[in-house]
């Protein structure tokens, strides 16, 4: 009962009334308190009790004080009750009707019924926890003043408060850091770490931060960032720029190309490179121009343009002589092959495998049998 404080019966700015019930008596623990006939009010933030006759006589308790509550059925000559268990009072609590109390719980006795509905609304209100949503302007002062009381808390209550404090601090940090750009730049390192720790914690518990595979893919591409992208600002606008760009491309594309079997469509390259560059966007024209320089620079990559007009970037190890040799080897192994069979063997597309076979034929290593069953290649024994 010592958790109650005097109130004026008015609601605060963000507070709204949820439900009220006449004819409620309060118990301190199991004993009747001196509040025997009044109206019990539930707001989004507090539980209030107002005397039936003297409306000035009003006491309140914040909902955050409540640990849990339970119903107690009515008996013969006994009204139905709700037992409310409370956290210990904080040291610097405002004055109330009781200075101290041996009990950690109070009872609300519903002499004119209404306890079922009240209990339901109380449950709802407690799960919504609206009182936690304090507008930012009001946040700073009350937390400072109640600091002394907070540090003393132990047990579950203490843990809860600590978590709550930590959350509030994180929230504050985020909103402060993003106030303007200079602040964010100052705190960038901290924010990078914070974002990672939040994302990791969520990943631990839920598997991934998002279900959306496009966003996951975006994250993956972005994470392969280039620290110093070659830009027109840093390397001029002429050939020099394209030369440097080609060198950088060769560096970042090596691994992805190996992962993809040595060949990538230029559109895929464009997306990959630009995501790695972040905000330093590269135009399609610049990309093509840089890729054209691979050969001059003796880089291990080549831009290749198919007869169909499709452009790809491929590893140099994908060169003609090797392709022909492997095609011939495969044909000799099997006796004869069609383009489809070779495609299946090598795990490449039908068009590419056909191209390889035709190339080998042109070089005189294979010969064809063109029938209704399709084009079949044999080792050239002639």
């Amino acid at each position: 009962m010592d958790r109650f404080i005097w109130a004026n019966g008015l609601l605060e700015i963000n507070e709204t009334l949820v439900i009220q019930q006449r004819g409620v008596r309060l118990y301190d623990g199991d004993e009747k308190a001196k509040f025997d006939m009044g109206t019990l009010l539930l707001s989004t933030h507090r539980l209030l009790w107002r005397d039936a006759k003297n409306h000035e006589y009003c006491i309140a308790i914040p909902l955050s004080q409540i640990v849990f509550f339970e119903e107690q059925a009515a008996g013969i000559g006994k009204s139905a009750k709700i037992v409310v268990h409370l956290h210990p009072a904080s040291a610097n609590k405002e004055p109330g009707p009781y200075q101290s109390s041996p009990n950690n719980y109070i009872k609300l006795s519903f002499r004119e019924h209404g306890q079922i509905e009240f209990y339901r609304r109380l449950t709802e209100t407690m799960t919504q926890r609206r009182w936690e949503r304090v507008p930012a302007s009001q946040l700073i002062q009350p937390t400072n003043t109640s600091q002394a009381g907070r540090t003393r808390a132990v047990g579950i209550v203490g843990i809860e408060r600590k978590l709550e404090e930590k959350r509030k601090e994180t929230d504050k940090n985020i909103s402060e850091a993003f106030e303007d750009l200079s602040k964010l730049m100052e705190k960038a390192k901290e924010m990078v770490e914070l974002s990672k720790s939040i994302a990791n914690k969520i990943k631990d518990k839920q598997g991934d931060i998002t279900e959306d595979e496009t966003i996951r893919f975006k994250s993956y591409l972005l994470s392969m960032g280039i620290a110093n992208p070659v830009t027109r600002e840093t390397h001029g606008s002429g050939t020099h720029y394209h030369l440097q760009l080609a060198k950088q491309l060769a560096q970042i594309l090596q691994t992805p190309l190996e992962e993809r079997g040595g060949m990538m469509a230029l559109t895929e390259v464009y997306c990959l490179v630009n995501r790695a560059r972040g905000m330093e966007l590269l135009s399609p024209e610049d990309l093509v121009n840089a890729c054209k320089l691979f050969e001059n620079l003796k880089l291990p990559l080549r831009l290749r343009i198919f007869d169909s007009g499709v452009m790809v970037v491929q590893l140099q190890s994908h060169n003609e002589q090797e392709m022909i040799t492997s095609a011939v080897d495969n044909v000799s192994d099997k006796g004869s092959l069609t383009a489809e069979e070779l495609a299946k063997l090598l795990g490449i597309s039908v068009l590419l495998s056909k191209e390889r076979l035709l190339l080998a034929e042109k070089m005189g290593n294979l010969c064809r049998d063109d029938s209704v069953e399709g084009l079949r290649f044999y080792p050239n024994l002639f």
Partner: protein
Amino acid sequence: MHRRGVGAGAIAKKKLAETKYKERGNVLAEDQIAQMSKQLETFKTHLEEFASKHKQEIRKSAQFRVQFQDMCATIGVDPLASGKGFWSEMLGVGDFYYELGVQIIEVCLALKHRNGGLITLEELHQRVLKGRGKFAQDVSQDDLTRAIKKLKSLGNGFSMIPVGGTYLVQSVPAELNMDHTVVLQLAEKKGFVTVSEIRSSLTWETERAKHVLEHLLKEGLAWLDTQAAGEPQYWLPALFSELYSRDVSPEEASQLMP
């Protein structure tokens, strides 16, 4: 503060308290996840806002740019958020359409494993919109079309195929398309396939199946039997000899000879 609880009542009360504490613990854990998701959301909103408002400033500092990108990667925010602006609108120049191009290719690549590089313009539009942040400028299907046309200088690999009033966007060129191989494998058992067979066994969209079969027809790898019962069958002559000639043993063959 202590109540001197004794007897069965006290034990029951203690047990009750314990279960309540446990419940409270679970609630706390759930709360924490909810709160962190909220913080993540705040982060996302802020990053999106900064990406669209402070692009030039962010680009200026090399160190900060890396950090910003790092955050975007962690949270999954798109750092590209240029507005269309007057010049983009009128002449199609500027970063807007290039950025859109990157986003379009990204969506196509992310879904390639499911749709084989074929996507309707509507779905593409939806996905691109979702990927762009709250603060990025809205894009229309017309913008998408323009952005795709800008990708032409990257070769013919990325194209729009008109289909009944709308478009399919194809992101995988035939040179890199493994679909044909898969369909050929499917046909191996019987020597032919139909559109509905492909749909049911590979769970492809009709458009994707048709696209592959038409390509096979064009390349002369498949023959079409439109008189087959039910639906057209695509026969693969390359498989004929393997499937239908081995059933005849030398003895049978000599019997068949006159």
